[in-house]
């Protein structure tokens, strides 16, 4: 495919790419906008800190949760954040293995996004514990009372899955980063930067022997990361599917969750791609062709998620079980129908515009559609949690869930927890993989010469 082989404009030089991309951390070009973004992000992070202090002081009662809706914002946002994170690994690892070289302009910031999204997800179950200082009870340590964690419970699997995911994502991210840190080290002129990149690059010198081992490590880690993503989000779905709650207890859940995760994550990748490229003038590396491909991936994962919606309905109807049917009707027409229809409309209606090539190639349109998907997926998680729980098996224990101020403040706070380290990261490390872009550029120039 000629379109794919020439995704980077060939009228640029390797040296130019290296100078441009190392220049972002070394001579930061957008100070004012960065400061404004950082101010907003820090304000949100402070909101999170206040919310967490309040939570730890007064307990989970400050949230809107009750019995039967004892899982709400905490688990809802946990799933949402974790899902966003998964696209970073998929784009980076899966597309590396399939040799889709267009990923080379996107993988670095997508992986960075993954890291911080997983952190945001990871804090939620701890906040939800009620007594978060006992979180170490989840680990198998020789307790004086002789008890051990329950390894047959999805809640126990969760902590292993998320911690593994965070660690492996970090290892993968750093492995890919080492050669670029070395490139930045060799371009740095100020003492502080030389020391920072000098140490973090670990003395990488680009030796052919090193590249050989590095390449094997990188590819194999990618090969491990792909099933890891699938396992982690499947495991998250088992938190639901392993419970006998109508609307949760279904075998469609693992694929439905994994695809929904990829869908929301690709939406966030698109948002970041469009923003960063206009922010730092990276149109030569994140081209319209990249946006086109992102749009296609978004459309494809969106339609697959749509299949999940259809099958979920089918599953309930096919079971014919009274409580399942009740939950289905509650979703369509109950007190929380707005979350169901909100999710359907925001996820799938604007998405259809991506069938048009012109829309996919226009940054702001892709951005708006992606934003709609992010909100839609947020509503979907809300819907899955609350509509299944608020009407219990017994009418006597029916109840309602209304998020409190502290629910919202914690949630918006985690956006700060995501943005602050992300903004710091784009200031400290190259946001686009330098050596992989050069490799691709070289390959394209070769093909042009010989073909």
């Amino acid at each position, binding site marked *: 495919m000629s379109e794919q082989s020439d995704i980077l404009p060939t009228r640029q*030089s*390797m*040296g130019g790419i*290296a*100078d441009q991309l190392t220049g972002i951390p070394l001579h930061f070009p957008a100070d004012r906008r960065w400061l404004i973004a950082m101010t907003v992000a820090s304000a949100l992070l402070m909101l999170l800190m206040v919310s967490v202090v309040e939570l730890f002081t007064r307990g989970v009662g400050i949230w809107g949760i009750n019995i039967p809706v004892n899982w709400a914002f905490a688990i809802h946002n946990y799933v949402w954040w974790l899902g966003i994170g998964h696209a970073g690994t998929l784009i980076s690892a899966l597309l590396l293995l399939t040799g889709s070289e267009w990923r080379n302009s996107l993988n670095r910031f997508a992986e960075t996004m993954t890291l911080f999204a997983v952190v945001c997800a990871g804090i939620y179950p701890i906040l939800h514990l009620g007594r978060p200082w006992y979180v170490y009870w989840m680990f*198998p340590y020789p307790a004086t009372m*002789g*008890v*051990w964690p*329950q*390894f*047959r419970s999805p809640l*126990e*699997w969760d902590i*292993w*899955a998320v911690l*593994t995911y965070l*660690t*492996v994502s970090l*290892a*993968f991210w*750093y*492995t890919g980063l080492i*050669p670029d840190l070395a*490139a930045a*080290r*060799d*371009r740095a002129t100020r003492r502080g930067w030389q020391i920072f990149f000098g*140490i973090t690059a*670990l*003395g*990488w*010198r*680009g*030796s*052919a*022997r*090193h*590249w*050989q*081992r*590095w*390449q*094997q*490590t990188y590819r*194999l*880690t990618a090969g*491990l*990361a792909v*099933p*890891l993503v699938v*396992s*982690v989000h499947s*495991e998250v779905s*088992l938190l639901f599917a392993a419970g006998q709650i109508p609307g949760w207890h279904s075998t469609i859940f693992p694929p439905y969750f994994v695809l929904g995760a990829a869908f929301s994550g690709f939406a966030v990748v698109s948002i970041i791609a469009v923003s960063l490229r206009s922010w730092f003038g990276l149109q030569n590396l994140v081209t319209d062709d990249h946006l086109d491909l992102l749009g296609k991936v978004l459309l494809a994962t969106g339609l697959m998620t749509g299949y999940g919606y259809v099958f979920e309905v089918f599953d309930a109807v096919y079971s014919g079980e009274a409580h399942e049917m009740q939950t289905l009707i509650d979703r369509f027409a109950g007190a929380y129908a707005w979350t169901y229809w909100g999710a359907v409309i925001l996820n799938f209606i604007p998405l259809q515009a991506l069938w048009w090539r012109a829309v996919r190639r226009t940054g702001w349109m892709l951005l708006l559609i992606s934003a709609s998907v992010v909100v839609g997926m947020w509503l979907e998680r809300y819907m899955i949690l609350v509509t299944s729980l608020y009407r219990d098996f017994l009418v006597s224990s029916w109840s309602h869930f209304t998020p409190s101020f502290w629910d919202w403040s914690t949630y918006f706070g985690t956006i700060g927890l995501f943005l602050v380290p992300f903004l710091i990261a784009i200031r400290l490390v190259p946001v686009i993989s330098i*050596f*992989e872009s*050069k*490799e691709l550029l*070289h390959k394209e120039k070769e093909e042009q010469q010989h073909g």
Partner: protein
Amino acid sequence: MAEKLYGVLAEFKSPEHLLAATRKAREAGYRNLDAFTPFPVEGLDRILHFPRPTISFIGLGGAIAGAGTALAMQFFINYDYPLNVGGRPIYPISAFAVVTFELTILFSALAMLFAMLWQNGLPRLSYPVFNGERFHRASKDRFFLCVGADDAKFDAGETLAFLRGAGALSVELVPE
């Protein structure tokens, strides 16, 4: 250059020039060769006759260790403190699968990362080739070939001339 030499560093414009020069150097009988490039250059390891990397076996070892650790941990814990939940089996492999899978991947990935760093001798912040005057471009857009001074065929003057003849943009001696 009274001090001991590490070798000769030759700079090339493109991977193709580097590959051609490396092939020539092998044919001329040089054995202690290494190349420094801004990105992995395909085919270089074959020309240089590098042994196949062993990272994959270490990764496999890590995976087996991870799976073993996870299974042993879960079996032991359920043996040491059996929880009878509605008569469900105490040792269900299906319920142990998730943690076993996660630890398999965790151990494997970390083993490969650390093995890669260990075998590459990293972190090592200082290395003789960094003394090369133009070596900073090895991370930018130039491709370097280094002939080690302890090569049997090495002779400073002769090797310099040879590499210049092989199409190098610049050649220089690198002190130890």
